[in-house]
């Protein structure tokens, strides 16, 4: 048998990342290519691993709360909300209505901020330079509201176990409503840039198709699952806070491709605006903190609590042994699970589509690696 040389090989293995602007962080994807076509891939992760779950076992319940903000650092408010709710569930604490609506307002603003960041960077990856400048401008307004409320823009630590530390500042409602009036038409404006843009359609339609069955089998959640046509949103099916008292709709896609996921997220932003408006309307004066002791010492038990984070189901599994430190905190990160769908979604596609699919999965590496 004649010896083969590398000239006979049609396959090529290359690395994308870990330092690559389109991987949205330190993600390394090993691609096996035949020309431009992707034959297979392997995602190599862990570059940002900080051992968040180990840290949890060495901190008290309240001390650990700021750490969760560092996982999905573009959606810190929802991360924190999931954790404090999980501990509240463990303790059996009732959160006052004012705190619930405040949390919902900030969480939905955070969802808009997270989706705006996704939209800008995703479009930038696919060659549309313009949207990123607009979306960052709008996101800035949300970050200003966060800063006015709790002093931080990104890693907010906005909530406390049992409710809120700070009551709303004067003029909060007005500022939030002004933002709602402002951002609503803007979302339509981005639509005019992209929704019927021919280049955008060619780059996204039919790319990274995920059927509903595959999506469920792979465990993906959030807009990726809804883009595949499964109408499932934890805010609706297992409501937390006061989501059962507000009116909103859960958009779904039809074809499960990148374009449908784009439409789903765009509509989600509009629905978030609706939730914010209704929550502001229902804000009534009242207490902001439930009955929680100075020292948090839950019963020896375990709870699982999950919320609809901007990226999917964010779950916290908290095991208590009755002491003041958690025995174990497991974070179920949506980005980690959704990233697993990358390989099946890009097989057979072109290398340029890898960028589109990474963008449409909307991962944050801080959360993937924890």
């Amino acid at each position, binding site marked *: 048998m004649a010896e083969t040389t590398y000239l006979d090989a049609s396959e090529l293995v290359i690395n994308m990342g870990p330092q690559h602007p389109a991987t949205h962080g330190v993600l390394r994807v090993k691609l096996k290519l035949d020309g431009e076509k992707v034959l297979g891939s392997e995602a190599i*992760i*862990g570059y940002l*691993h900080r*051992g968040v*779950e*180990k*840290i949890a*076992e*060495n901190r008290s319940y309240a001390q650990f709360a700021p750490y969760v903000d560092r996982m999905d650092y573009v959606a810190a408010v929802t991360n924190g909300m999931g954790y404090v*709710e999980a501990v*509240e*569930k*463990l*303790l*059996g604490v*009732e*959160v*006052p*209505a004012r705190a619930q*609506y405040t949390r919902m307002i900030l969480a939905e603003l955070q969802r808009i901020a997270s989706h705006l960041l996704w939209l800008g960077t995703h479009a930038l990856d696919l060659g549309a330079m313009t949207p990123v400048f607009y979306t960052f401008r709008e996101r800035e307004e949300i970050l200003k509201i966060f800063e006015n409320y709790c002093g931080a823009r990104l890693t907010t630590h906005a909530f406390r176990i049992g409710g809120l530390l700070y009551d709303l500042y004067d003029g909060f409602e007005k500022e939030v409503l002004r933002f709602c009036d402002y951002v609503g038409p803007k979302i339509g404006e981005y639509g005019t840039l992209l929704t019927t843009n021919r280049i955008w359609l060619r780059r996204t339609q039919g790319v990274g198709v995920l059927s509903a069955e595959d999506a*469920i*089998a*792979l*465990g*993906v959640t959030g807009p990726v699952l809804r883009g595949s046509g*499964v109408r*499932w949103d934890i805010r609706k*099916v*297992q*409501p*937390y*806070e*006061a989501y*059962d*008292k507000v009116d909103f709709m859960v958009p779904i896609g039809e074809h499960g491709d990148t374009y449908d996921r784009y439409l789903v997220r765009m509509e989600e932003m509009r629905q978030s605006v609706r939730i914010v408006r209704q929550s502001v*309307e*229902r*804000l*009534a004066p*009242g207490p902001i903190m439930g009955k929680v002791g100075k020292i948090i010492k839950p*019963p*020896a*038990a*375990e*709870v*699982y609590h*999950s919320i609809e984070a901007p990226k999917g*189901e964010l*779950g916290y*599994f908290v*095991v208590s042994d009755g002491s003041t430190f958690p*025995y*174990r905190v*497991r974070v*179920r990160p949506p980005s*980690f*699970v959704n990233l*697993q769908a990358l390989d099946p979604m890009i097989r057979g596609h072109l290398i340029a589509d890898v960028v589109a699919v990474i963008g449409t999965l909307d991962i944050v590496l801080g959360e993937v*690696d*924890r």
Partner: protein
Amino acid sequence: MADEPKVPPPGGASETPAKPAPAEGGAGAPPPKAAALPKPPAAKPAVKPEPWSSPLLDELQRKFPGALSDGVIFRNLPSITVTKEALLVVCEFLKSEEGGGYALLTDETAVDYPKREKRFEIVYHLYSFQRNDRLRLKVLVGESEAVPSVAGIWPTANWLEREVYDMFGVQYEGHPDLKRILLPDGWTGHPLRKDYDILKQDDAWVQANLGIKSGQ
């Protein structure tokens, strides 16, 4: 407009009312005793898991005698322990339509109890779209035992099991590609074990690959 009721919402975060010291044996039989008290406006939440009874559990007990134990419920989330041998058949059944249609494996993780005879608790969180319900399964395994992989039933378990292997050193049987996922391949030790101190690290690896004494 702003007159939302401040009393606990019916479907929201409110939990099952407190039972006065739940007796272990007697499943079912809701206790109307607490209601007899004159003013129980804020029902105290249960402080410990209570025995769980449901048609699904009865069905499982009937189909897989001896395979299930410790059916408890806490904060509306039931939890059962399955023997390692029966894990795959029970999972197959739960995923099927008659078994409740638990089509989504939300999460798989482990908890380490080094003092127990079987130190690892492998925890599965299942979700059923059909019933809009969650269920927790547990499997207890010892240090040197391998757990059957559920990646054949729920493909999402692939990475989740790799993470458990990475963090706890639990071996899986029948996993398609069991290797470390978050830590580097050459790392020794499994950090989420309780005997792995928080400041501990693989010094040799850090020295060889990063050229520094400590990662701190």
